[in-house]
């Protein structure tokens, strides 16, 4: 998760001169890009932190699919990686799981999962609210809303609809 997006960022990274100060990241994309650019620049990417972040945000609009806290924890984990580890296989997956272990369940996720798990339960799937929260706390409210729209499809289409949402989400990343 995020691995492909990150790979794309660093395969096309170029230097941009950006003006302005250093505002606190306000979006998932900003906070993730801050983290990933921190390690990338430290590990030799020919860019400045600012230009890297700017490019990262423009290049990967799908980063907005991450919940802010998840993107923050994800980027933070990446930023602390050793350069060898950062460029090794599985670095992004490992940080995604590290982030998952650090992100708390927010109220929006909690209420979404109450409804979502009930829908799955009614459709005779085995899925607990805890499993739901563990997944969806990582995704933005927008992703949750797209998934929630699947609840109207009925049992026959529910699973496929949720699968389609995530296919789109991954394609956007």
């Amino acid at each position, binding site marked *: *998760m995020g691995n492909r997006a990150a790979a794309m960022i660093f395969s096309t990274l170029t230097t941009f001169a950006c003006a302005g100060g250093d505002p606190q990241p306000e979006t998932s994309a900003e906070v993730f890009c801050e983290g990933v650019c921190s390690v990338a620049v430290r590990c030799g990417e020919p860019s400045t932190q600012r230009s890297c972040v700017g490019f990262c945000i423009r290049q990967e609009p799908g980063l907005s699919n991450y919940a802010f806290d998840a993107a923050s924890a994800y980027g933070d984990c990446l930023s602390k990686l050793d350069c060898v580890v950062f460029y090794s296989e599985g670095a992004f997956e490992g940080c995604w799981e590290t982030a998952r272990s650090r992100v708390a369940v927010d109220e929006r996720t909690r209420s979404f*999962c109450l409804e979502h798990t009930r829908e799955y*339960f*009614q459709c*005779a799937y*085995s899925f607990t609210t805890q499993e739901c929260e*563990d*997944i969806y706390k990582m995704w933005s409210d927008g992703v949750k809303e797209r998934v929630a729209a699947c609840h109207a499809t009925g049992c026959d289409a529910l*699973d496929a609809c*949720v699968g389609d949402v995530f296919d789109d989400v991954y394609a956007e990343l």
Partner: protein
Amino acid sequence: MRATAAPTLLALGLVACGGGSEDPSAGALHRFPVPGCEAFDHAPCDVREEACQAQLFDLALCLRGGGSGAPPAVSLMTEPEYAEYLNGLVEPPPQPNHYERALVMLRLVAAAAFEPATVVAERVTNVLGVYRHATEDVVIIDHGAATDDETASRVLIHEFIHALQDRDVDLEARDEEYASSYDSYLAVRALSEGEARLHEIRYLASLSGVDPGAVDWRVRFQRSLEYSEGWVFEQTSPYSAAYDVFPYQWGARYLNFAWEAGGFDAVLARFASPPLTTHTLMTSIDAAAEPVTPSAPATLTPPEGWSPFADATLGAWGTFLLLGQTAPRETARATAFGWRGDRLFVFAGPASADGAEPATAVVWVMDFADEATAAAAHTSAVVNGAVWITERVGARLTVATCDQVVDLAWAFVP
């Protein structure tokens, strides 16, 4: 209690990725109690401990809404122990087993489906727990990692419901009284297994963090049934596989209507007047269906040298299994709803002088509500079996076949 033929979650990859249920960030699962049982602890526990057994028994009493007494003894068996236990119970079928051969010809079971080794292996794999009438105790089958506290607690609730049923209604005597054929066995078992599954699933909602009070239970039980129906048709022996799902899923849907209407008393009323055919269970879609009075096709007399081996009623369910092999599921189901009675005769052929195995012949006489339904069944049967001889007369369809080349004209005597 049998393992449910449950669907897998398409998003399972996501769930698997989620992993970490012990992850501190995930927080504790908030469990909603089953309405009316708020005073009871719903948390799963170690079923080997007496305190856990007492906790779950109290909960089972509340879930059921009736019953009394102390918890029955509970023990665990490993899979090898359970296999050994079953090996002592399962009797070898007669050889040659013409009944099995007949069902193989009808494509309802695979060869050796009724051999003890097959039966034991299937049960060891699929049985999660059992309530033993003779000793009035519960055995949980330990399937290793698959038997975690949640699963074992859920299974124990299910088996405790059986123990409570047995105190109210002598289950074994009831089975002996009503279950005289495949059809009536599945139907009668649907009451005991249906009630146990009903309350087990209400408890499962709580275990899953779902508010049982917010669940559309009719949707849930219908959906479980649909998955199980599909699963049965994927099995090599759908006739046998039905034992794993029909009483549970069709029974739960059926008893949920009673439960919704009048709770425990309404459920007990069903036990007093049980459905005797799978037709009643299958057609209870939006409400409990009125039973039809099945026809009783006359006994067939085979030619000299042939002897009757088995005489069974497979019911609307068996008819559905037959027709659903080739007809679209919806068509087969609708046709089976038109079932009005059947008899399946199995005959053993004359012994041959050269010591060859005697032939097996099967004649299945099925009555339907009307000629159009019988004609639909006929079409499905003809498409299905090129080696079957089929004949429809009015609303009656007869299907016959034999594993040797013999004249079966006698099977179609009106």
